[in-house]
């Protein structure tokens, strides 16, 4: 039976899953846009401005989606989780306040100038506005990840009368998991954007829309992905070791280890069964989990049995983790193959361009599965070791929460469908617009001179 707690958790999960998709695009895409603009400023090559023109539209749309779902997030704390602020408000409050004050206003105000001010301010001021929007989005990630990390590895506080009070702000902000989570999330954002840029460019390429702007954007996306995917694997590994130190129950669930043992195997595939507390159909590599986690084939790894009832649901974390890793491996293979073709200046085979186009939104799948791994992995705690999720929930009747959950789900389903279809529509339109402006003779002089098409390579 779905009670207020479960419905509130589903509602928060639905809301934050929907929300995070868009900041993950805009945080990195803001810097990519800045790069396009700086290249145009430096070279005067119109292909950079053409690339900017398409991607600034995608950015504006993604930003709006992020803003409206973010506003909804900020209300959910109070409507569904009043216990959260009552207990840890002294920590969460200032972090959220600094996010609004230093980041939200900055990005929202200068976004207007960045989007619509091109003809009203100097090119230099427009570049500054673009920089400030990029700084604002990244700063917002800094503050919110400080809070999220603190919920996983709380530090710098003491409990007095059941309420958390800060003893050191430096320890609160730079809590043990923060540097790893910040790095892992920022790289994830750049990977999401790089596959979006490369994938949508591949989509245009397949439609025989092969202007220099398409080739340039695809190259930027592929190079970013090829450099960042291996980096992300290293950062993710470090983040995992940090989790082992501070949240061993989460790692036990990720690895599907029910019992503490020396020489623990790496479970490649299994169906974890919570009733029998064991894995069915397990495919294992002996001793490998111990080797990876403790750097010793006979090292001891804690299993679920160490944590009584204070452990997350194993199957959900186990599977989310495997999906994330699978997407990472796929990203590595695709980006390196594409980069190799780029390096040798060879055209990509059509089947591969299709794969790249199919991976346009692969970053989203990676982000969500990674997000579920870490956030479900924190359960049953809301703040690890400090308060349980059930302690924070509202006393509202389940019917009210069920109603709003249903409404949000409908809204999000409609918006996500509209968003994806419009992104591809914008890509098709961009092709038409560029083709039009590249035929200057028939319709009089074009606005911008165009460089020669680069034959033969993407």
């Amino acid at each position, binding site marked *: 039976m779905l009670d207020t707690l479960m419905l509130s958790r589903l509602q928060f999960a639905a809301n934050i899953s929907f929300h995070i998709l868009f900041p993950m695009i805009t945080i990195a895409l803001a810097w990519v846009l800045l790069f396009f603009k700086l290249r145009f400023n430096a070279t005067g090559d119109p292909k950079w401005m053409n690339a900017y023109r398409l991607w600034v539209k995608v950015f*504006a*749309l993604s930003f709006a989606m992020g803003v409206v779902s973010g506003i909804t997030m900020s*209300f959910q704390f109070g409507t569904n989780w009043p*216990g959260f602020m009552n207990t840890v408000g002294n920590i969460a409050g*200032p972090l959220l306040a600094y996010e*609004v004050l230093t980041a939200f*206003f900055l990005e929202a105000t200068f976004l207007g100038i960045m989007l*619509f001010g091109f003809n009203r301010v100097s090119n230099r001021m427009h570049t500054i506005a673009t920089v400030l929007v990029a700084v604002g989005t990244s700063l917002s990630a800094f503050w919110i990840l400080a809070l999220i990390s603190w919920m996983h590895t709380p530090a710098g506080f003491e409990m007095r009368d059941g309420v958390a*009070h800060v003893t050191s702000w430096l320890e609160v902000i730079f809590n043990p998991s923060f540097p790893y989570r910040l790095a892992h999330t920022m790289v994830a954002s750049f990977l999401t954007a790089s596959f979006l840029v490369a994938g949508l460019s591949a989509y245009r390429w397949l439609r025989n829309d092969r202007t220099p702007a398409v080739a340039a954007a695809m190259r930027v996306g592929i190079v970013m992905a090829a450099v960042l995917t291996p980096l992300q694997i290293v950062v993710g590994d470090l983040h995992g070791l940090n989790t082992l130190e501070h949240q061993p129950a989460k790692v036990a669930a990720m690895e599907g280890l029910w019992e503490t043992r020396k020489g623990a195997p790496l479970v490649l595939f299994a169906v974890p069964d919570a009733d029998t507390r064991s894995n069915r159909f397990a495919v294992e590599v002996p001793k490998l989990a111990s080797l990876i986690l403790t750097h010793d084939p006979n090292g001891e790894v804690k299993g679920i049995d160490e944590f009584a009832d204070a452990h997350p649901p194993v199957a959900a974390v186990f599977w989310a983790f495997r999906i994330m890793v699978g997407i990472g491996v796929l990203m590595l293979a695709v980006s390196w193959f594409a980069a190799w073709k780029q390096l040798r200046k060879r055209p990509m085979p059509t089947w591969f361009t299709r794969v790249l186009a199919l991976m346009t939104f692969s970053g989203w799948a990676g982000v969500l599965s990674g997000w579920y791994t870490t956030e479900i992995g924190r359960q049953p705690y809301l703040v690890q070791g400090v308060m349980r999720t059930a302690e924070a929930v509202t006393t509202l009747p389940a019917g009210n929460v069920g109603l709003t959950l249903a409404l949000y789900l409908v809204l999000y389903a409609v918006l996500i469908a509209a968003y994806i279809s419009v992104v591809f529509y914008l890509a098709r339109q961009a092709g038409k617009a560029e083709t039009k402006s590249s035929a200057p003779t028939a319709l009089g002089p074009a606005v911008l001179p165009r460089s020669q098409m680069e034959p033969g390579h993407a």
Partner: protein
Amino acid sequence: MLEQLPDLATPAGWLPLAFMAVMGLAILAYVILDGFDLGVGLLLEAGDSGEKDTMIASIGPFWDANETWLVLGIGILLVAFPAAHGIVLGELYLPVAAMLIGLSLRGVAFDFRVKAAAKYKSLWDHAFFGGSLLASLAQGYMLGRYVTGFADNGWSYAFAALIGLCLASGYMLLGSTWLIIKTEGRLQRRAIDWARRSVYLLAIGIAAVSLATPLVSTRIFDKWFGLENLIVLWPIPAITAAMFVIAWRSLARLPLRLDEDNHYGESVPFMSTVAIFLLAFHGLAYSLFPYVVIDRLTIWEAAAAPESLMVIFVGAVIVLPVVIGYSIYAYRIFRGKATELTYY
């Protein structure tokens, strides 16, 4: 006025007061700034296709930053008055959800209407109007519930519904008077018409809240109708009434001046409407003080720990003036009549 006013020399005494002021500023800024762009959304369906584009262009560069004031306002309620935050948002659970769905639809429709295929444009225009309407009605309804102390009877709900309509009308007045400043020609004339029709319900709404709050709370009644207070406070309703007269006369004279191509006084209706909102807000704030949940929870009872408030206060003192500074800069860049929105 309060029996045991806390020692205002200590941080635990003056910090909640300071945060109430900042929260008041944020909510006021939100109501006026997002008020005019919500109002334009409410009027959108009345414009023809070209007019719709101009109307959207008049708010395009601003709406996002305007909405951030709501996040700041709710953020301060959340971080500075955590105890009140749970009560208020718990009581207003469903209208808050309605408002959020409305704001979501409106915020994204703004982008979708020009980015999706042309055949969907009118669909997104409807979403923009519907979202603005839902958000405005919900906000007014919440105000109505809030000032009656969330009383659980039929009259209170009916009152809240009335305030919903009145606030929506107030936003329409803000929106149409904003359009008078930002547009020209036929659309400007129509905006004057729309403004004249929106005045009544706003006046009724302000009167209704002014009468209801003293009836709900004897404490508020005594505050306003004690003899010495009556003398000190009469300017608030008097100036409000004067502002209505100024707005009304200006709306009546503007068309005549515009006929002679004289643009003098185009901003008077908007400015006087802003003044009306300012005064109504201050009257309400005076009534409520020092309670953050009417007659239930004072700002001191609801406040977070002084150490945490101090951390935010220092940040707010440094950052808010900068925020206000660059917000004014952004409005200056886009001053004058609205022009077509282009990205480059």
